[in-house]
């Protein structure tokens, strides 16, 4: 069964209002974009790791996800550092090693590490949000953020239908296999692989698209959209810890702005 990787708990991150956690992610996105100096980027990177550890997410459950993420990321970052022609675009690169047309430069390594830290910080902090927030609270939180309720309902409804379509995809695959459909393409290459998805994607997508009418009818019969606002069964509200966290975030933003004005460009070790 496909489900959001939410792990219930009682840590501070679990107890925070989802809106504060949204703001936390936005704060990290802004800081990661604003900071150029790799020494500054270390701060949000370390902060994100501390936050993640404080969430006490069961490692066994997320180990696979991290492997899935880390391997390609580290690989891409290594390519950034070692196998690009960055050295040629920097006026006076500090060449550490040369191999054929490739140049390993100090600048390349520093920029690759900075890019890697940005990517990982964003991944870690967004996992903090997802791993510690009850999926049922996203829509009420969005509604409290003054997102039009039809917009919040899109998220709610989408989450509701994920298991339905997953099951339908599995059923369709089994039905097609019973009719001789081969899931593994022998030969034919890339185009054959794409065409091989047609017997799966067409029936599932068509069923889903045609069911839109039924769902829309059912909702209209219950007067969905008749009122300008609506209430939610579950709701979220700011507690003292949320106000305190908001104050801390504002202070951190001010510190980040100050640091950005002091360290305005990339830093390359001498």
């Amino acid at each position, binding site marked *: 069964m*496909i489900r959001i*990787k939410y792990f219930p708990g009682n840590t501070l991150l679990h107890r925070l209002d989802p809106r504060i956690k949204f703001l936390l992610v936005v704060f990290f996105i802004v800081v*990661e974009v604003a900071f150029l100096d790799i020494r500054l980027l270390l701060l949000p990177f370390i902060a994100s790791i501390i936050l993640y550890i404080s969430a006490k997410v069961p490692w066994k459950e*997320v180990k696979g*996800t991290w492997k*899935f*993420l880390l391997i390609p*990321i580290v690989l*891409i*970052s290594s*390519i950034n*550092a070692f196998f*690009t*022609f*960055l050295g040629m675009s920097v006026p006076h690169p500090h060449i550490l090693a040369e191999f054929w047309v490739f140049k390993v430069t100090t600048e*390349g390594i520093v920029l690759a590490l900075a*890019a890697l830290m*940005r*990517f990982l910080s*964003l*991944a870690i902090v*967004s*996992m903090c*949000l997802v791993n510690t927030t009850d999926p049922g609270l996203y829509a009420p939180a969005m509604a409290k953020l003054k997102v039009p309720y*039809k917009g919040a309902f*899109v*998220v*709610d*409804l*989408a*989450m*509701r*239908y*994920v298991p339905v*379509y*997953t099951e339908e*995809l599995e059923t369709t695959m089994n039905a097609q296999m019973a009719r001789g459909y*081969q*899931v*593994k393409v022998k030969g034919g290459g*890339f*185009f054959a*692989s*794409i065409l*091989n*998805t047609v017997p*799966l*994607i*067409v029936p*599932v*997508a*068509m069923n*889903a*698209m*045609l*069911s*839109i*009418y039924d*769902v*829309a009818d059912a909702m209209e019969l219950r007067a969905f959209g008749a009122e300008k606002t609506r209430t939610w069964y579950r709701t979220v509200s700011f507690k003292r810890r949320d106000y305190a966290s908001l104050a801390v975030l504002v202070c951190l933003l001010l510190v980040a702005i100050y640091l950005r004005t002091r360290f305005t460009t990339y830093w390359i070790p001498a």
Partner: protein
Amino acid sequence: MAVGTALYAALTIPFNVFQIPGSGGLIAVRPTVAIPMLFGFVFGPITGFVSGLIGNILSDFFSFGGFYWNWDIGNGLLGAVPGIAYFIVKRTDWTKAKTLVMAGVLAVIASVVGIGFAAMTDYIFQIGLSTLDAALAEFYSAAGTDAINGLILTPILLYAYARATAGRARRV
């Protein structure tokens, strides 16, 4: 529109998360890119954009819990660009060869625009990619595969949808 968007988002996730065996992984075959393109074509650019955007955000939430705003917007653009056809193609013309060719061409343009946006913002904001070479490599591989997926699958899905809804009097 809300219902359609929600259902697309929900539909994207099993296709993205539940890997189709033998497809060679999601990088090579990403049939889901054709779905926001179809939604854009059929329901307009806004539905296409929101479908791609929310579908990608939720599918990332389900698959690994990450959130990459620029790729989410890029996927939104995959749906928005074919939405141009919504204003110029009549519903009765959906099964015509000319329209199907247009759907394929718009899918290719959408891939270039959407993935171009995502790869270039990766480079501009230095998210995981520090050099232009790496960003271009990412763009060529991702936009190329999405364009071929969209080129083949969008016209097939459009034709199937047109046939399935033919004769339905209610909103399409």
